[in-house]
Structures are given as C-alpha cells and as structure tokens.
C-alpha cells in the first residue's frame, strides 16, 4: 500500500525525521466524497493554512510550495507541484499566490484528494536516501546519493557510481558504524555526516516498524547555514501482506484511481484499471498477466486486470460486478486451477450471469481440477466453454472489435 506524501511525512514526523512545516488542505475526504463547501470553502482553507504557517514561522514567509497529493510519479514535471512567492511580479501577496497555484493544479484534470502547503526550505544541496529489500542477498538495502531530487533509476542507469549501497543484516538491524560509514563515504562533512547517520537510523527504524517495502526520501534537503537534513518528499510503501498487523493503515478510497479498484482492494481482489475493451476475469497472477499480453499481441485492449483465483475463487459474482462497472465490450474468463476448483468457478460464473444479467458477451476457458464438472455446468447454462487460451483470447478480441457476434 502506497502512502501519499503527506501520510509519509506524518510517519516521518512520528519517527523523529525532520520535515518542512506544512498544512494539509483537503479537496475530498479520504472516503472520496468532496470536502464540504465547494471552491469558496477550499479557498478559505488555503488562506487559513497560509496564515497558520506564517504565524508558525514567526516572521514573514517569502515562499511556499503547493503540492498535489496523489499517487503519481513526476508530479513536478506535470505541474502538480508549484513554488509560489510573495513578490512574483504580479503584485499579489503569498496567500493569493497559493490560491492561484492551487487552482491551476486542480484544473489539470487529475483526481487530487488534497493539497499540501509547505514551507520552502532554504537549501544548499539535495541528497537521495532509500531503504528496500534485496531478494537475492536476503537483506535490507540502503541506497544513497549526493545527487538527490532526480529520478534514481535514471541516475542508476547513467551514473551508477553516484549511488552508494549498504546491505543490512535483517536479524541484527542497521549498526552505527554502517550509517556513519555511509555518510563519510558520501563525502559529507562531519556535521552533515552526523545528521545523516541519525536520519538513516530513524528511517531504518520506521522501515522495520511499519513493515515497509520501500521508504524513500528524494530529495533530502541539506539546509543552508548550519546543515540540517529535512525530508523534501516522502515515499512509503507498506507491504500488503503485513497490513493485518497495521490497523493504522486502513484501505481508503483516496489511495485508488477508480471506484472499482478501491472496491476490489476491500475484497482483497487484485485489480488494475485500464481503458480498453476487454475485461479480464482470470485466475492466477501469472496466467492473468499472460492473458493480458496475449490480448495485446492479438491487437485487443484490456479494460481491467482482475484475478479471482486463489482465495477468491468463489467470488465470481463480486468479480463480475467489478468488470461490469467498466465500459468493456467483452468479459474474458481464463483459469487453470488446483485448489480453485474448475466446477466451483464455473458454478460461480453461471450464478453471477443469472443474477447480474451482463450486457456483454462472456468467453470462458476454465480448466483444472474437475474441469469435466465445469464443462457440464457451463454447457447447461448455455455457454460454450473453450479449452485453448490463445483461441479464447482471439475470440474475445474479435468480439470486442465487433467482428464476430456471439453470446
């Protein structure tokens, strides 16, 4: 589960990691409903935020940053992060500038649940710092660079020497000599090195405490004057398998880009939203992904990726409901299961069709344990089951393209 920037920064604060002073201004609530009061109320909240930050700063603020809160890379390039200044030539004050910038950001057509209004940090350098896992070495991995603020993968590809790596034994955890050693290997001066070591120690504690897949600070600001380290951004991804022991991270509408994706997440059904014409309702991650490929190879396009195998193999009705929320032309069902018994899945599909009366054709390719039973159930319901995946895909693509009529 990806946390949004402001949620990540809340976690940073709880771990003692410095973040810039900020106020969150909501556009919609976590459950997806618009925050009360419309545009006027939003402007009032923005003005309040600026006033509070100004008061907190105990002096006039020269500039602020307005940051759209949504799960998306490249927010800066997309114009979703804007630096505003009081004296930016138009004569307007800081608060008006914030309101104007907010308007521009919200007008870009993204689904943005909130804006983060943040103090601009006076900095002399930007670092990169992240912690993740190495599946091969079976350890935790710290990556750090003096060249923060850029895309780390681009940097890794182009100038791998600019990134330093540190492996941490998962049983012993990070040690002082490691954080210190990394700081000096980055060539930081003594004070900055100390602050860096302290920051990394805290970030590591957070990483393990919240069962994160990834914690990333990009950039870490090194402030002007006495060098302090402040988290300029926050990327925190919680391991989904650990969420059962982290009730502090509920599944919220705002983390998803569609209602269907959100509802699927509540059900524990893997789901991805696309804008094609074929709804996939397949069992098994590998098989579903392969069907996704095959649809594309055959010139079709996918409306949604959906797995209803594994523990969800008896959720055919819920899965079909999610598919029907899309404007797809066809539902393509492909399975080859073990515990996910073919007859149970077929039964589920047939019941779902009876209940939901789908308005679009359904292609089935259901195999595996007790597939003979499945065949009988499907045929009795008037369906014509298929047994070759590629043929099923080709049929679905043709149906979606309207070149073949079939129910």
């Amino acid at each position, binding site marked *: 589960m990806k946390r949004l920037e402001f949620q990540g920064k809340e976690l940073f604060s709880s771990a003692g990691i410095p973040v810039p002073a900020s106020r969150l201004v909501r556009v919609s609530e976590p459950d997806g409903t618009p925050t009360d009061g419309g545009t006027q109320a939003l402007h009032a909240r923005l003005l309040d935020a600026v006033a509070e930050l100004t008061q907190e700063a105990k002096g006039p603020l020269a500039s602020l940053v307005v940051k759209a809160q949504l799960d998306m890379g490249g927010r800066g390039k997309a114009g979703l992060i804007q630096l505003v200044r009081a004296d930016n030539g138009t004569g307007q004050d800081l608060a008006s500038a914030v309101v104007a910038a907010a308007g521009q950001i919200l007008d870009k057509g993204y689904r943005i649940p909130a804006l983060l209004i943040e103090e601009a940090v006076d900095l002399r350098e930007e670092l990169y710092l992240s912690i993740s896992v190495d*599946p091969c070495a079976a350890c935790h991995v710290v990556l750090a660079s003096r060249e923060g603020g850029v895309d780390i993968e681009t940097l890794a590809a182009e100038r791998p020497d600019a990134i330093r790596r540190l492996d941490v034994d998962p049983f012993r955890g990070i040690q002082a000599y490691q954080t210190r050693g990394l700081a000096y290997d980055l060539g930081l001066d003594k004070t900055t090195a100390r602050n860096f070591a302290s920051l990394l120690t805290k970030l590591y504690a957070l990483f393990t405490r919240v069962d994160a897949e990834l914690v990333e600070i990009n950039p870490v600001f090194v402030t002007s004057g006495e060098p302090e380290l402040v988290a300029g951004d926050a990327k925190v991804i919680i391991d989904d398998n650990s969420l059962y022991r982290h009730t502090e991270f509920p599944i919220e509408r705002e983390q998803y880009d569609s209602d269907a994706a959100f509802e699927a997440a509540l059900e524990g059904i893997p789901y991805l939203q696309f804008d094609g014409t074929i709804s996939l309702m397949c069992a098994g*991650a590998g098989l579903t992904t392969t069907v996704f490929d095959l649809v594309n190879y055959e010139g079709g396009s996918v409306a949604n990726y959906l797995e209803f195998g594994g523990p969800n193999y008896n959720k055919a009705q819920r899965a079909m409901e999610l598919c029907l929320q899309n404007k797809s032309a066809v539902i393509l069902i492909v399975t080859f299961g073990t515990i996910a018994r073919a007859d149970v899945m077929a039964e589920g599909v047939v019941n779902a069709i009876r209940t939901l009366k789908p308005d679009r054709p359904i292609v089935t390719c259901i195999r595996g344990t007790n597939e003979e039973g499945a065949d009988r159930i499907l045929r009795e319901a008037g369906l014509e089951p298929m047994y070759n*995946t590629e043929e099923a895909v080709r049929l679905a693509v043709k149906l979606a393209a309207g070149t073949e009529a079939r129910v």
Partner: protein
Amino acid sequence: MSIFVDETTRVLVQGITGKEGSFWTKHMIEMGTQVIAGVTPGKEGETVEGVPVYHSVARAQRASGEHAADAAMLFVPPRFTKDAVYEALDASIQKIVTIADGIPLHEQIEIRAAARSQGAQVVGGNTSGVISPGKSMLGIFPYWIQRVYKPGRIGIMTRSGSLTNEVTAMIVEQGFGVSTLIGVGGDPVPGTRFAEFLAQFEEDADTDGVVIVGELGGTMEEEVAEAITEGRFTKPLVAFIGGRTAPKGKRMGHAGAIVTGSAGTVLAKAEALTKAGALVADRPSQVGTMLRTRIPETR
C-alpha cells in the same frame, strides 16, 4: 531420478490436521510421497491418513529416530510460516516447501536468510510446491490431470501456478513429460531462486532440458542467463516470461512482478537469456515446439 524429492524422500507435514493439510496429505501419499510424520501442536497421538501426529517437529524427529524426515511440507497460514520454517530448520530439515500465500515481506527475507545460513533450501511461499510426477509430491498439484503431470525428462521451474499448468500442457502435447517441477513461488523474496536449482538439474541424469516460466520483475531470469553464460548449466533451456506488455510501475500479478526503471522488464530478461543461448517463447504455445527443436527425440 529427479531432483529435490523422489520416492525415497521422507516427508514431515506441518499443519497436517488442518483442512488443507489433511486433504493434500492424502493426495501426496497417493502420489507416492513417503509422509512419515505430521505436526500440529496439541494434537500429538492423533493420526491423519495413518500418519502419526506430534506436538512439534523436534518431537516428531526424535520419535522417528534414524528414519527422521529430510523434508518438511508446510500447510501453515502465512503469518505463522516463518515460525514453522524456523522450527523445521532447527530440526535440521534441509528441504522445506511452503505454499503459504501472503507471508509478510520482512519475514520472507528472514526465511531466506535463515535457510541460507544453514545451507537449507526453502521452496515458496506462494507456490504449488514441488512435484516429481510418479514419485513424490510436496505441494498442491492437480497431478490427476494427465495432460499436464505426465512423468518424463523435462525439468520445470516456475514463478506461477495456473500459468504453469498452461505451459506444461503445451510441453506434454509435444510428447515430453516432467522430471521435476519446482514452483519457486510468486513472492518478491522466494526462499530459493531459479538459478539455485540449476546445478541439481544439470547433474540429474534423468533431466534432458529445463523450462522456466518467469515473469516481469526481479532478476531471477537474468541469474539463469548468467549461469548458462558461465557454463554452470549446459542442457537445453526454454523460457516463457509473462508480462511483456505490462505497464511500468504497476504491480500486475504477483507482488514480485513489478517493473521499476529498465530493470526487470521482460525485454531485458529475454535478451539476456537469448544472448546466453537459451530459447525464449513469446506465447505458451511455443514452449513445447521450441523444446522439440533442441531435443528432437521424444522423451
């Protein structure tokens, strides 16, 4: 022969009295698996399919004396899997298979680290397990489906479940059969990786070639390419890798199947394998015919 498990492997089942544990124990025994003991805390003295149940792995091993188990099959929920793996490792069991889907990531890391530190192999989680058709099964395979689980001389390693049935059916269609099929699992941190089984397949006189069923994300396929390039694996190898058209940055399918940057793309994997001399299929249906080009005689 075969690798990892055969009819001589003595298997202990952890979580044997549970619904899945007892169901699949029955099937494993039908498959030929020597299940010698089961473990469920608090149920010592019971039996499942004639197999005696003990409170703990250590107690089962002590009771079995010199005929102690050398492999453990876990039917244990994901949040208790790390504990069960540690328990098996602590009893010096060096081959462990866990099907659990949903092991917390940090515990996946610890499982692999602990196993490696004592030279053991954990297969899984999030897998169907390991099967040497006709000999032994540690897992949950529909071995009764003849068009997939036919005994033969092709080793298979896979990150997926259903997709493997799909691919294996294509191999069998070409007249091949399976020596050992190992599902390394779809987790980001599988207990044992593709390349770590290659030496065993290389040595196995009854394996003529290997098929790997990979997917986007991670570096397991690249490690196989490296092993071939370095001459550590010399038999014919065909790979099918799912997720070629998957969008970047989205987690599609297994938790391990995610591409960030250029690392882990199917393209990069396919290139590495092709360069190493392996054949890479674009579609499952090509796997069997490609294999046939390298192994002309039916085996």
